[in-house]
């Protein structure tokens, strides 16, 4: 290979410029309405939280034990649309509400939701779960009954375990009838954390509650 060819192969990199151009592109594309799924990651007391939204609203929240952002993004791409881009500015409102929640200054979320990752009975259970107020808890059995099948508490448990929008759809407020915490997709210690934050962890509830 000649010296000239070698020199041509060594075009200096423009990594910083390319990265900045790519970020600008994502913002621009979202502004043009060309992004089907936007996402970003935000910091929180329960670790990094990935939030994703469609034109309709918040569609996915992921965090906690075994959480892998790349896998979540792949999954959104396959199930919704490959037009997935990281657009941090799209989530200014979501970030603010989550911050306020984790600081104990917010007891309900004012965010539109997109339920498209849920189906049938599971969706009914999760929609009922979304209505459990801050500071209160319910049981798998009651959620199953509210969704129309009192005996399907196991299916209700599965639906809650597969909740695509945890925290905002507060599946952490659903416990075992016997008083046990039950399970949590993000890891049980995070369920405990959220319940303690809301002042409703069994055995630690404030006097008179």
């Amino acid at each position, binding site marked *: 290979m000649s010296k000239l060819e070698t020199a041509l192969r060594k075009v200096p990199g423009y990594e910083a*410029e390319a990265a900045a151009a790519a970020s600008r*592109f994502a913002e621009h594309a979202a502004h043009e309405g060309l992004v089907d799924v936007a996402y970003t990651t935000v910091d929180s007391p329960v670790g990094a939280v990935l939030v994703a939204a469609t034109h309709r609203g918040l569609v996915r929240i992921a965090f906690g034990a075994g959480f892998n952002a790349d896998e979540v993004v792949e999954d959104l*791409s396959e199930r919704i649309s490959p037009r997935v881009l990281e657009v941090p500015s799209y989530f200014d409102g979501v970030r603010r509400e989550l911050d306020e929640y984790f600081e104990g200054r917010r007891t309900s979320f004012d965010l539109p939701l997109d339920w498209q990752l849920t189906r049938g009975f599971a969706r009914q259970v999760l929609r009922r779960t979304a209505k459990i107020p801050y500071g209160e808890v319910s049981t798998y059995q009651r959620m199953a009954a509210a969704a129309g099948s009192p005996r399907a508490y196991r299916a209700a448990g599965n639906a809650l375990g597969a909740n695509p929008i945890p925290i905002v759809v507060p599946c952490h407020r659903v416990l075992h009838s016997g008083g046990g915490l039950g399970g949590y997709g993000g890891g049980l210690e995070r369920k405990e954390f959220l319940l303690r934050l809301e002042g409703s962890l069994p055995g630690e509830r404030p006097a008179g509650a």
Partner: protein
Amino acid sequence: MELPPFQVFMDAHRDDVFRFLVACVGAEEADDCFQETFLSALRAYPRLEDSSNLRAWILTIAHRKAIDAHRSRKRRPVPAEKLPERGTEPATARDTSLWNAVRELPGKQRAAVLHRFVNDLAYADIGQMTGSSEEAARRNVHEGLKKLRGAWQT
């Protein structure tokens, strides 16, 4: 082959595309071309049938946008036989005489040389991407190199 999420696709190729565009149109116009390139790609993305060579696909789009940029620059009422140097580029170590010489090459030779050495593509791919043949691509690279040798001082 399953299409990757667009973000993953862009992360994988953004450096190549940007570098190629800087070499084609200069640092000043590279960003505009970059935006246009990925906008076109994003519009077409969900309907893309062959995802086996996404790199060649995005570089082909980048190449087209670079040609458009050259054309629109030519359409501007600049009374010049030769395109004016875009004098605003900072004279950093990255902006060598070699790259200025590359930008002076005729379009087809410039594209062929850049695809061959910057993007490391095979002649057959270059032929396909520039709408000509493998032989023509080889010839364009050869002619381009010959001109560069004359212009390039080490």
